[in-house]
């Protein structure tokens, strides 16, 4: 087993990124993915099933990546930042149909 080479704040930041950052990223993925698919002509239930199922695999990827990525800053930028950007894009797309 590894001896911890990181401060406890660093570990807490990683754990928070893995849990909450990944959540934001996955939320964005489902919002943007489903909106794009539906507006692109995919049936609603196909789009929602596909993005919801893939969402958990995306979360799993993000969750693991948060621990193995070299830069903690990059982890937060990609997961939280990417999540916010995709969520806004998905929100905008879903409103663009009305």
């Amino acid at each position, binding site marked *: 087993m590894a001896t911890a080479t990181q401060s406890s704040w660093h570990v807490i930041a990683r754990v928070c990124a893995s849990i909450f950052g990944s959540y934001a990223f996955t939320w964005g993925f489902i919002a943007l993915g489903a909106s794009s698919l539906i507006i692109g002509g995919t049936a609603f239930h196909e789009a929602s*099933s596909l993005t919801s*199922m893939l969402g958990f695999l995306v979360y799993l990827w993000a969750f693991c990546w948060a621990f193995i990525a070299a830069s903690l800053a990059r982890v937060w930028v990609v997961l939280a930042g990417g999540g916010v950007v995709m969520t806004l894009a998905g929100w905008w797309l879903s409103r663009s149909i009305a």
Partner: protein
Amino acid sequence: MFANFRLSFAWLHTWFGLVLGFVLMAAFFFGSLSVFDREIDRWALPETRIEPQPMPSFDTILASRFAEIAAPEPEELAAASKRSTQPLPEKLKPALFGAYTTHRDPVLDVFVGFEVPNSTLPNDLAYGSVVIDPRDGRKLPKDRLALGSAFFYPMHYSLHFTWYDIGMWIVGLAAMAMLAAVVSGVVMHRKIFREFFTFRPGKKLLRGTLDLHNLTGVVALPFHFLWALSGLIIFAGVYFPVFDKMLQPLVEQHEREEARHTGLDAEPSGVPGTLASVDAMMIAAKDHWVSRGVPGEVGYLQVTHVGSSNAYVSIYRDSTDRVATAEGLHFQGSTGRVIFEDPPTGAAETVNGFLTGMHLQQFRHWTLRWLIFVGGLLSCVCITTGFIFFVEKRKHVHARQGTSGSRWVDALAVTTVTGMMVATLATLVMNRALPEDLANRDLWEKSTFWIAWLTALTHALWRSAAVLQARMSKAWAEQSWAIAALGAVAVVLNAATTGDHLGRTLMAGYWPVAGVDLMLIASACAAAIAARKLRARAAEVVPVNPEVPDYA
């Protein structure tokens, strides 16, 4: 996070596996029991020890039962009043009738959805329900606890911690940790195929434990991954309510299109209407299934927009012969004419349905049912050996340093492994020991469970002091003895209070009760053997300066 990829994954595996492993034990142990939830129900509710029944007549039995359900359950009502922007009226209007049964159910769940006015959610309903004997429509008392389907089953995904669905979120995070533990476990152990065949129980406890951890992890790898994943997918709408909370315009557009396409209105018309014979619709549905070459029984019946002129009746074929996919026929309520038949689902929805159906197993296939049960137990063994490995690897170092980390882990491991079984069996014993006509009998049974579990925790904490000196906690052996005793008492009490002893149930081939009894005896025997071995091991002298190898 660390110098390399494998060390980061090892950290993730150890700490998430440990912290959420305690939750995962509950999810997998009660999940395994849920595989036989209907059978445990029969054991716990002797008055329902009858053969499974088909859906009864709507016109003569169900209609009056629906009419008698006057209000939502108190907890449903309390939750609904929080979702409503204004105080709820004295009496809510029924909007939906539903009745659900499977090929393993002698009793029928009958429920009514009441409209929640001024709700923050669209088409919001609050539910009230009864369980009836489908032969004569007799209602079963509300305070009789269906231990399998109403206690162990919700425990495995919610921990009965329903405040803001907190329990479901904890179990969801634990399921995610399970997936991450599978991935990181594979990364950490590069000799994965050799581990299929490696178990050296004769060697040191540490080595044997790790072998068993790896073996159960690898052998049941697809099970661990798919059951955690499909459990999450089933509750995707709870964990990621993206569509309800954010993409409403797309949902509403879809509902309008669907209503136009199917002829099934999304909203009630507001004009009162009456229902034609629903029995005739059920007969028409069964004839239709015969003509399609898939004869079957009605598994689920639903009336939508109750009392409205555009009410419709949906009749679904039971899923005895397939993994998933709802096959519904929808009738116009006022005329009994078929409005719409569900078309085959698209590819993504079919995969979703398959994963859901695989997890929930409403199909009739006893071999698979047992395999899934064994899979769940293998997950429990994998998690348990993870705990033991954690403690065994560290306890000597902790003892020398005078720190207590492995003591607390050992106590929690005892509580979630043997303690959970003690609590479960104590509840079964209490279920048979309490007087049949006791008021709030369900409350007594539930309280027994939590008190027994707390007692097991207290006992484990007390006995774990031995771990501080790197010795084995006696709690493992003592709680195993408790399991053996409670299991035996449960079987005896069942025979004494109901007369359905094994001789009778086996002769009659009544497997729900015979199966639970046999399982109780098997568990009691296994626990007694384990207790003897544990006692022998606890008596072993601790080596003065043990070698602590680094296996992980």
